């Protein structure tokens, strides 16, 4: 993927040609995404079929499901009466046309379900990750710069606690303290009960409310967002702190850092522009991982805070063997992973010129 940028000048090519390799790289990633998406749908489809169990039985209830006619009608309605290759082929054909099918659980198009659940999780994830980076990176720097001193020890203990604490427990504890005891934050949901959400533009309530000029609604949405986002961030703050600390310790005693100090540069400049920049690729890699943590951690946090996101949707879909919903969620997760990896790869080049694409 990466090669020394000096190669561009060695081969005599002008630097203005640099975007083409980038587009080739982008093209390769897009092709990989399509292949991955098809693979994901295939694996999800096969796995769902391998699980013994008929969704009709729980959907229809014990009495109606004993009526073969009702079960047959259910199978026909959801296309489950057709041979498996036909079912899969139909799914792919509909997928190409942007139709992800209808959820057996919600009786609504999966695309509509995802359109509502993804922004809910994304709103939570964005704030959570932003908080995790904003707090985790500086704390990691502090811990590294003050290695083996009291503040370093304290931060290491705190970050170990953050990583070790079960998210669901932390969520309940946060709710108990900040909602029930102190009454600082609401007790769940995206808005106060009965509040009409802002007109949908992005699906992010805070953003949509601001765009519509409904500032009290934006505040209501933000007020509901803060506590679950902080709970979700706890693990990742600790993770980023630890990784940033070790990444900085790897480079902080290097010759070029000493040279920078010897040149008389202020310590802040040395730490931020030389040490932190060199350590950032490792940190960026971890931040990529943080996305995965947020998606998995969101299942529990969303449940406790009654947050209608993709985590809850995926959990319910799996329990009920809701195939269209499972496939839709799997595709979304695949797209997120590929996109995050892509962004991380691009950021490597931005941060470290030695890693630029050829």
């Amino acid at each position, binding site marked *: 993927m990466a090669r020394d940028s000096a190669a561009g000048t060695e081969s005599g090519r002008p630097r203005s040609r640099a975007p083409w390799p980038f587009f080739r790289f982008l093209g390769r990633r897009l092709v990989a995404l399509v292949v991955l998406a098809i693979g994901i749908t295939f694996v999800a489809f096969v796995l769902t079929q391998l*699980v*013994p*169990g*008929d*969704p009709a*039985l*729980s*959907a*229809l*209830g*014990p*009495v*109606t499901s*004993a*009526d073969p*006619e*009702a079960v047959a*009608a*259910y199978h*026909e*309605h959801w296309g489950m009466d057709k041979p498996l290759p036909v079912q899969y082929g139909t799914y792919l054909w509909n997928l190409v046309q942007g139709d992800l099918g209808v959820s057996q*659980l*919600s*009786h*609504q198009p999966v695309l509509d379900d995802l359109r*509502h*659940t993804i922004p809910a999780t994304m709103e939570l994830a964005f704030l959570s990750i932003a908080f995790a980076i904003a707090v985790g990176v*500086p704390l990691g*720097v*502090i811990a590294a710069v003050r290695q083996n001193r009291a*503040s370093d020890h304290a931060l290491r203990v705190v970050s170990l606690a953050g990583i070790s604490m079960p998210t669901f427990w932390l969520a309940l504890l946060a*709710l108990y303290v900040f*909602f*029930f005891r102190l*009454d*600082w*934050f*609401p*007790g*769940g*949901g*995206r808005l*106060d*009960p*009965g509040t009409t959400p802002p007109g949908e533009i992005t699906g992010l309530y805070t953003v949509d409310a601001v765009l519509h000029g409904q500032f009290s609604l934006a*505040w209501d949405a933000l*007020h509901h967002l803060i506590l679950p986002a902080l709970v979700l961030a706890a693990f990742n703050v600790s993770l980023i702190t630890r990784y940033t600390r070790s990444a900085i310790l790897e480079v902080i005693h290097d010759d070029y850092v000493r040279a920078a100090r010897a040149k008389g540069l*202020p*310590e*802040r400049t040395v*730490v931020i522009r030389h040490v932190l920049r060199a350590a950032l690729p490792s940190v960026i890699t971890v931040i990529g991982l943080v996305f995965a943590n947020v998606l998995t951690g969101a299942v529990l946090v969303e*449940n*406790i*805070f*009654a947050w*209608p996101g993709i985590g*809850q*949707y995926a959990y319910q879909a799996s329990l*009920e*063997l809701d195939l269209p919903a499972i496939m839709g969620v799997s595709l979304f997760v695949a797209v997120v992973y590929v996109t995050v990896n892509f962004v991380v790869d691009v950021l490597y080049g931005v941060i470290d010129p030695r890693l630029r694409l050829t």
Partner: protein
Amino acid sequence: MHRTAHVPRLALAALVAVALAVVAVVASVAPAAGDKTAAEGTLVVDTSFVVQTIDPQRMFEPTSQIAVKGMYDTLVTFRGQSTTPLPWLARSWKVSKDAKTFTFTLRRDVKFSDGTPLTSADVLFSYNRVINLKGSPSFLLAGVKVSAPSKYTVVLRSSTPNPALLRIVPNPSLGIVNSKVVKANGGTDAVGADKTDKAEPYLLGHSAGSGPYVLKSYNNKTEIVLEANPGFWGPKPTFQTIVIRNLPAATQLLNVQRGTNEVALDLSAQQAATLRGKSNLKVITNASANLFNIDINTDPKISEVAANPHIQTAIRYALDYPSFVKLSGPGAVQAPGMIPTTFIGHLPPSAKIKRNLQKAKAEVRASGISNPKITMYYPAELTINGISFATLAQKTKSNLAEVGIQVDLVGKPVNSFLETYAAGKHPMSQSYWGPDYPDPNDYLVFTPGGLAANRVNWAASKDPKLAALAKKAQRTVSDTQRAALFRQIGRMMNQRAPFFPLFQPAQAIVSSGNLTNAVLGVIWPLDVRAVGTR
């Protein structure tokens, strides 16, 4: 090094300052969260959502029932926890002596929320749509033909005597929809509606009923909001707005303590017990009509051990029933038979099976099977009324070990469990039954040849006497005679049926202290139209 320490200290101080500032701003600017959970005139119902749809003729889930019950009227209704049918849309009815023909006379002053008068044509459409959609609630009208001989008369004709029908009709799935509106939006009641009816998307966004509430918004993951129907034909409801909100039990426990005009529906009896004595709350716990039981297969091809009558009797007397009741907490009761104590025909407490380890051990010896071993299946992740099936299965295993029966436990996801269970392939199952309608006829499924009996391969031919008695009970019209027959059946079942009734779990409802009539219904979890304030 002096500067080295200086920069991080500044950064640390800045971080702390920012964090404190954010918290301070949030705490000072935000109104008290508890004050906002229920605006004046709003009732907030907290529940863990079990909802697939709010199309009345397709739905059969508890959360849907709360919403649909608020928006749609039924011919007959129940009040509170009573199971006595009361007039509602039907001001009177007649039942033929053979319990096959039910003639309802409708009120003439009922209007849908759009002002259209409700007539027998709407009842005909709604009932036929239930039947022909072949959805979850269609079994309620199995074998029933509906006709509308006049504008305000509806006749239901059942192919077999159906004395339970008057207790089936109050089910919210049999709520009456505005036929003109539903037809205009793709609905049909014709044969083949399961393929041709397209009205569900409309009914997920709008209501088409005559009830005291209309649908304001529906989100099957967050909340369902109902608003008072200004043209409601009956007594005005207390609350202008109803918010049914999706919250897990742990969060409900905190919310109901902070809220006003708030109801929590899913707290376990133990959780509810922690709230007793709080002056701002009303806590009600009692026995649910749900029934936890153990089923054992009578087919030797599935398991020779399970099918052995001595082993079955041994299990019956080896189970420690009071300790099962204790698991569920205050309010739970041991089920005296397969019919819950809330319905006519249930057995008196004196008929409860009592543990007798000596007798159980003697039966194991009499079976002639050394070291008997049975596999028991249970739905692994399922929890009902706060009770995990996994816990019950462990308890069963340890009880039976005391009399020398080894139980191998197999937990399966619900769907997988149901598939093999329905096929009659489980030697033994940790099972459960919730009432579909509050009538003992719903429990005939456990008699030989019934739906649940077939799952343990207990055909009518295996106990013809009991099967004949069940048939007689099904056709009997008089409630007094039915009660006597069902008690007779219950006593016989307690001696020889392959079902062991364990307990009716405790159920709890916690509400703000100022609310009235916030009680758990027998069929629907809560009747929001009845909830008022002091």
